[in-house]
């Protein structure tokens, strides 16, 4: 079953945290399909480093909620091999930074296997990556590496920004026949939001317009979506009407939604946490600059991305490393008022 449209659940929505929404999605997937297994470090009795798997091991047992040794490359490879042969593993990296140990299996094997074998197999593996800064964990536990994965044909890459999407995109990912990488921002885990009960999917590859506006398009990803909305609320008071797009999927990118928006607003601001250079915003910008929206542009395309530095430990430095609401405000004002 591959649901291409967003199914609205019959039952009313409750408030759940982002982490709870993911956990609920995993539980639903496991109930519905016994081929679904969870793998990762300390996801069993510990409940996961961020308590996302919680007590699922009690419900589904250690045969389906599998604590792996600290072996990211091997673990990811086992998940890939299991996916090719009939399971539907959801593999949790404890921190997205540790993906650096498993790029071989993700990029050379999972992403390419179907192609290299001429379509003879599918690799329905889901990998979850707790990402981002803001926790004081410094340079090796705070990276936002989603751009790397967006550069790899064969992978799909999503970045849910709300509890609703965290659940819906995970359920879509589990059903997807191809490898799906989910980047979850650690600071979002405690964010609350409406989450429908029961089964629904959010389509991979579709952005969401979170706020309509006429003056400037702000395309944001992950935790930056809320910051962009906060900025937009302030901007509205200043007479600047911002459209905020939640990109949701990095690969394949929803060209149409972004391009249409820029044709309307004539201004584009990209906001993302990953390092600015060669980050997701570079692609958004380049995609628009080569599109039919180019002729509509009234101002340079501005990117607000992470600083060109590893994430520092000191909290004030750390905060200064990634875009904040005040940076979005300043950039949007400049863009619209033509300071640049």
């Amino acid at each position, binding site marked *: 079953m591959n649901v291409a449209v967003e199914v609205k659940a019959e039952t009313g929505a409750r408030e759940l945290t982002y982490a709870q929404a993911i956990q609920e999605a995993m539980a639903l997937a496991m109930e519905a399909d016994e081929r679904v297994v969870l793998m990762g470090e300390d996801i069993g009795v510990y409940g996961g480093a961020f308590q996302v798997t919680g007590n699922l091991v009690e419900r589904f047992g250690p045969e389906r909620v599998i604590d792996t040794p600290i072996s990211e*490359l*091997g*673990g990811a490879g*086992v*998940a890939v091999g299991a996916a090719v042969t009939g399971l539907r593993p959801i593999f949790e990296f404890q921190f997205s930074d540790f993906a650096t140990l498993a790029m071989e299996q993700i990029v050379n*094997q999972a992403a390419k296997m179907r192609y290299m074998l001429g379509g*003879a197999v599918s690799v329905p593996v889901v990998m979850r990556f707790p990402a981002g800064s803001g926790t004081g964990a410094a340079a090796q536990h705070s990276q936002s590496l989603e751009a790397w994965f967006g550069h790899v044909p*064969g992978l799909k890459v999503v970045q849910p920004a709300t509890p609703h999407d965290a659940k819906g995109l995970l359920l879509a990912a589990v059903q997807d*026949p191809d490898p799906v990488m989910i980047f979850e921002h650690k600071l979002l885990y405690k964010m609350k939001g409406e989450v429908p009960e029961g089964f629904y999917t959010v389509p991979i590859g579709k952005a969401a317009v979170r706020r309509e506006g006429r003056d400037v398009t702000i395309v944001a990803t992950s935790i930056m979506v809320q910051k962009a909305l906060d900025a937009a609320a302030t901007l509205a008071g200043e007479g600047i009407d911002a459209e905020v797009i939640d990109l949701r999927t990095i690969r394949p990118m929803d060209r149409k939604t972004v391009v249409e928006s820029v044709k309307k607003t004539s201004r584009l601001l990209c906001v993302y946490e990953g390092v600015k250079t060669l980050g997701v915003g570079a692609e958004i910008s380049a995609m628009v600059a080569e599109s039919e929206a180019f002729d509509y542009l009234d101002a340079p395309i501005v990117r607000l991305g992470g600083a060109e530095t590893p994430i520092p430990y000191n909290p004030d430095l750390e905060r200064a490393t990634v875009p904040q609401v005040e940076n979005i405000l300043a950039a949007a004002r400049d863009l619209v008022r033509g300071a640049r």
Partner: protein
Amino acid sequence: MARSTKARGQTAAKANQPFLYRHYTPEQLREALRKMYLIRRFEEGAEESYMRGLIHGTMHLSIGQEASAVGICMALTDEDQITSTHRGHGHSIAKGADVKRMFAEFFGKTTGYCRGRGGSMHIADVTKGNLGANGIVGGGIPIAVGAALTAKRLGTGKVAVSFFGDGANNEGAFHEALNMASIWKLPVVFVCENNGYGMSTSVARSTAVPNIADRAAAYSMPGVIIDGNILSKVAEAANEAVERARLGQGPTLIECKTYRYRGHSKSDRNRYRTKEEIEQWMTQHDPISLYEAELREFGVIDEAGIAAIRADVEREIAEGIEYAKASPAPEIADLEQDVYTELA
């Protein structure tokens, strides 16, 4: 080829024969010889086609290592799964692939196993349980463990086999995969084809133990060292390990000592080993010659039988090459097909 139950309750005379001859029927034994020939002639044919410019890229020939591929796969059913290596033609044929479609793949044709996308380094035949050669040294080892996890979890009774070289045993993936297979008691057999070198680097220069199987103890699994050029020894070790796996007793590491006659790949100048060493293996310890002699000794085959097999193999190879030549090339327009699964 599957284990023969028929072959079991044989006459008492057979009891003194080596395992291979007790366990398999004469037809199966002759089929094993045919496969060894087929592998060798396939690779010679591929080499020749490469020289003639019909195949491009590079290739890694396993000529000299046929007993290991065939002996291991004799213990497997068509449902059992293998992961293979850059030197994977032998594994592919031993696991039941059709040389027609292999040649077609090497020629880059749509009729090839990978529709021309993979070539030699990614040859696979999923219908026969071959999950594919691999361009990444050690890349297939965790994947085989994953296949074994599926088998255990879904109770399919399948066994997974991971082939890899001596060089691969120094990759982190080897370590991580063997450890997981052991703690989870998965139905997987690790087969190290130790041909003495990883490219130019000898085992002595790259590996801190004299035998790769010495490392099995680090994963609390049996480590078995065998002469990988003697088919009967390989098959016996394989059967034991596969049975152990199928009974839920966990993984085994088998080390087949063998040798590759050709260079590492098409660009090897063989500066790291002597002509004498190569000659010595070719003339004194060739797996096909050794097996043929054994079959004759046990009266399983005679000259005519061997000649028939050879002729049969020649025909199959010639037909395979013709098929490949005649097959259509892929359309450029289809370039991006199969990057993703097409959703219905």
